[in-house]
Each structure stands twice: as C-alpha cells, then as structure tokens.
C-alpha cells in the first residue's frame, strides 16, 4: 500500500473473482443492489457482461456511420468540384461529370473516414490516455489482464457507503476485497 499514507480519498471498493461466471453473477447483483457507478475489469471481453451491468450504448457505431457518410460525400464532392468547377479539362473526351470514374475514390474516402471514426471514437469515449488510474493502486489488480475478474464500486456512486458496500461485496463471496485509494 505505498500510496495510502494519510487517509487517502477513497476511489471505491474492489472485489476480486476467479471465474467469468462469478463475475457475471456479481455484476448482476451489484446492479440489482442499485449501484450505478461501478465497473468490471476482465482479461478479455465477456459476452453479456455489460448487459448484466445494465450498460447499453451504441455511440461507436453511430460515430462510424456518420464519419463514413461524411467521408463519402467529401470524396465525391471533391472530385465533382475539381472537375466541373475549379478546372474543367477535356480528359480523353470524357464527360466532365463522369461519375462512374469517381466511385472508387468515393468508396475509399468513406472507408478511411469511417475507420478513423471507429478508432478515435472508441478511444475518446473511453477517455483513453488516462495513464494514472486509481484502480492500478490495488496490487492484485495486475492480474486483471491475466486471469482475475474484478468488480469495483466507486465512491462517486450516490448510494455509496464504505461499510455497506464492503458488506455487500462480501456477500458476493469474492477471493478478496480491497480499498481503491484515489
């Protein structure tokens, strides 16, 4: 506990489980117990976990869709504008608006923009680049990337009370429960 000198502000309480199924169970019960601000940590994506936690969102897909749309429109209008408006040139006697020739680039523009949307969208929503995060303060949390499964109830939660939360977590019979200092 290197970080906890003078009673540190508490980020939350963290329980450690051994199997995905225990975690799923735990997540469901934590939600049922009315906790809002809590999160699970698993070494790999577990299906139904977010459902169990009661989290639903489709921000990323929508971002990708809009970006893709913009990309396509942008690429196509770039070609139309340069060919019809900015510098109309007689190329091989083809029509200025020879749209079939513009399809490939339109498509590529779409994919490029969409891919950026997916990548950056995800990381922005995930608030990535938080290199320092309280959960790392828990020593055994290192195993979250290997073979352990964690639930962490955050102190931000309106319903949070250290002792209640502690008791509640115990009721989930985890391997261990630990305080997460800020």
């Amino acid at each position: 506990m290197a970080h906890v000198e003078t009673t540190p502000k508490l980020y939350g309480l963290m329980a450690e489980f051994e199997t995905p199924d225990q975690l799923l169970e735990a997540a469901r019960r934590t939600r049922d117990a009315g906790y809002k601000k809590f999160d699970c940590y698993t070494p790999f994506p577990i299906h139904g976990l977010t459902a169990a936690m009661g989290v639903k969102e489709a921000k990323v897909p929508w971002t990708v869709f809009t970006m893709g749309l913009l990309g396509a429109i942008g690429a196509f209008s770039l070609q139309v504008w340069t060919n019809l408006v900015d510098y109309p040139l007689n190329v091989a006697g083809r029509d200025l608006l020879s749209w079939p020739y513009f399809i490939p680039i339109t498509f590529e523009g779409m994919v490029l923009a969409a891919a950026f949307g997916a990548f950056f969208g995800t990381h922005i929503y995930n608030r990535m680049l938080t290199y320092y995060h309280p959960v790392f303060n828990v020593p055994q949390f290192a195993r979250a990337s290997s073979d352990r499964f964690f639930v962490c109830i955050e102190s931000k939660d309106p319903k949070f009370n250290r002792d209640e939360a502690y008791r509640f977590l115990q009721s989930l019979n985890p391997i261990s429960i630990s305080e997460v200092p800020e």
Partner: protein
Amino acid sequence: MQQTIKAPEIKEFPLFEGQQTYERITDQITSIPMERHPMAWTIMFGLGLIGAFALLMALVYLVAVGTGIWGINQPVAWGFAIINFVWWIGIGHAGTLISAILLLLRQAWRMSINRFAEAMTIFAVMCAGIFPLFHTGRPWVAYWLFPIPNWLAMWPQFRSPLEWDVWAVSTYFTVSVLFWYMGLIPDLAKMRDRAKTQLARVLNGIFSLGWRNSAIHWMRWEQAYLLLAGLSTPLVLSVHSIVSLDFAISIVPGWHVTIFPPYFVAGAIFSGFAMVLTLVIPFRILYPKLKDYITMNHIDMMAKVMLATGWIVFYGYLCEMFFGWYSGNQFEQFLVVNRFFGPYWLAYWALIFCNGIVPQLLWSPKIRHNLLVLFIISIIVNIGMWFERFVIVVMSLHRDFLPSAWGMYAPTGSDWWLYLGTIGFFIMMMFVFARFIPMLAVAELKELWYKLYHGHNGHGGTHAPEPKPTAPAPQGGGQ
C-alpha cells in the same frame, strides 16, 4: 492453486494443444518478447537488416540516376516495379482477410494467426508502397497525386486508376495499421502488467494508452473492432480490385479483361496464405511455444484455403484463354498464342506449373500435414504468383497492337537489387515484430478459450475456492 482443464476436443482437430489456463495463455505468449531470443533470431534479423540497407542504397541510386537503370523501355514501360508492387500488395491481403473476413465469418481458428498475419500485411504493404512511388520518373513531385491545394491551381486526374490506387493503397495501409493497433492495445496492457523492467513497463504502458480492462471499454472496443473488420472486408476487396483496374481500365490486350478484379483478389489471397505459411512454419520452429496455439489444424485450414483460391486463379487462366479464343478479336487471339509460344513462354508455363499444378498436391491430407513439403509448396506458389504478374505486365506490353512497336524486356541488376531489398526489409520487420510484440492476440485467444470451455461442458467455475477476505477489517471512526 491453478485450476487446469484439458483442452476440449472440438470435432477431430484441436485449436489448442497442451494444458491451458488463462494464466498460461497470457504467460506463454507475452513472455516471448521478454525472454532472450534464439540465435536464429539474430541471424535472420541481421540478414533482413542487410537487405533493408541494400534497399536504401538502391533507392538512393535510383533517384540520383533515373529509372533508366531498370530494364524498362518502349513499349514495356512497366517492369519489375509494377510486378513487385502487385505481388507485395497481394501478399498483404491475406492478413486483412484472416483478421477481418474470417472474423465476420466467425471462424474460430483465425484467432491464433490474425495478429501475425496483420503484421505481415502492414509490412508487405510498406514494401508494395515503395514501388509505385519510386517507379515514377520524378518521385520528388509524386505528391502531386494527392489533392493538395497549390499555386498551380492543378488537381489530380481522378479518372486515372493510378489515382484510385493512391487512395486505395494509402487507405488500406492506414486502416490496417489502425485495425492492428486496435487489437494490440489490450495485449500491450498485459505486457505492461507483466513487464519485469521499468522500461518495458513504461513503454508498454504508453502504447497501451492506459488500458485497464474495463468492461465498458471492452464493449466499445469490441464494437469498434467488429466495425473495423466490417470496413476492412470491402476495403481489402476494393484494393486489389483497383489494383487490377490499373490494368483492366486500359485498352492493352491482356490487360483489358473484365474478370480481373475477382481474379486478382483470389490470387492475392492465394499468395497471401502461401506467405503466411512460409512465415508461420519456421516461426513455429523458432518459437516452440507457438505450437500450442498455431496447431496443425490451423496449418491444415490454410492449406485448404490455398487449394481453393488456387483453383479460382487457375479458373481465371482458363477464362483468359477462352476469352482470347471466343472474342474473335485478332489481338486477343494473338495474345494467347504469344503467351503459349512467344519469347516469354517460359514465364507463362512456369506460372501454370507453380499455380496450377503444384497446389493440387494439397488435396492429400498427408501433404497438408507435412510441414516441409507444405513450406516448399508455399514458396513455389509465391514464385508462381510473381510470374503471374510478370506475364500480365510484361507479356501484354511487349507485343500489343502495332507490330512495328513491339519490343522485348529484360530486367537489369538494379531491378533485382531493389526487389531483393524489399524482401530483406520485410524479413527485418517481421523479426522486429516478433521481438517486441506479442505475436498472437492474447485477449482474443482467451475469449476463444473461454467460449470453447463453456461450449463444452456447460457452466463451470464450480471449482472456485472459499473467499478469503484480505481487505482490512471495517474500522470504527477515523484512524
């Protein structure tokens, strides 16, 4: 205290070998970059390095003197540069195919090779990109192919397939990198958490962007990953289609062929899988730990894919012959005859042998499980695919419409020099990758493992021991 579960037998062939646990999967794969590396690594890397240096020299010489150092001429104005470009791009495609299309097709066996294949893709595309850029007469103005506002008030000519190429290849490269890195982030986090040295910790920490395995992150991550896969799938098809259009849009007999797009894509996958095998087989030997995850089953699968795509390609050759005959067009007919018996007949029959005949060996399971033979076949296929591009590029150009303008083409030392240089660069990059990055997608493997395990014997987790609270007992008041 580790629970151990026997690897479940799925159908007759396993996707995992040996005794596995989540811990062991993580450990075996992430440990590779952290341990000392075999002598072979150093040797191969050294070779690659030399090759890469040769590449650099070749480029300097090229830019300094001009494309005249190559064998290209009139009428064969495209030679090795374009052949190698198409060849490399084709190789690249296997990676994306495995990671994207197989993901969408829910092919479980992709998990253990996709990281590896994607890395291959990226490096192959790098090699490919060198050629179109430097084969131009004036590479220093090649940026004109990008739509940058400028004082000339000039824009690229968007009707040109070469312009499409610029967009396709650069998009393809970008997306591949994003896709690859996306999948890499959680594994880098694992590296961070297991790193023994502070440096490793910090570097992996920086590049894993502070990943903390949060369930919600995992959710978005999965969404994005799936979407990227969804995007990459049409992308990868479009890229080689566009590359094929570089030829098909023209009016040169032998280029102006409608079947080119599908035929090129199949060829790309064909050569791509061949290259994956060419790499995987030695890597399995180099890093025995991989054997548990890249099993004979995987190799067998890839061999089958090669067989299938090989047939598609061969069908393409047959089509070309048929078109030539059926078109009733004297130029097309002459083309076929010229391929069979023209001055470059050797290239054509080599192609038929390597891509048409040799892959038929893969029908036999024995051969599919004989690593040595498989390795050799994969190399032969790569050579064959190179010849295919030679046949398309050179043999179509050297005798087109007006006999008075016919010519011959022979590569020069410089051509070979540059080509081998890229191969060296490719090898170097692959070994750098093996040295610093987990070669398999750990998280996905675990997920797979989890699914298989559940799919096998219902709900597990019953072995969970009693909870032993370790947190400090509730304290009264503030202390």
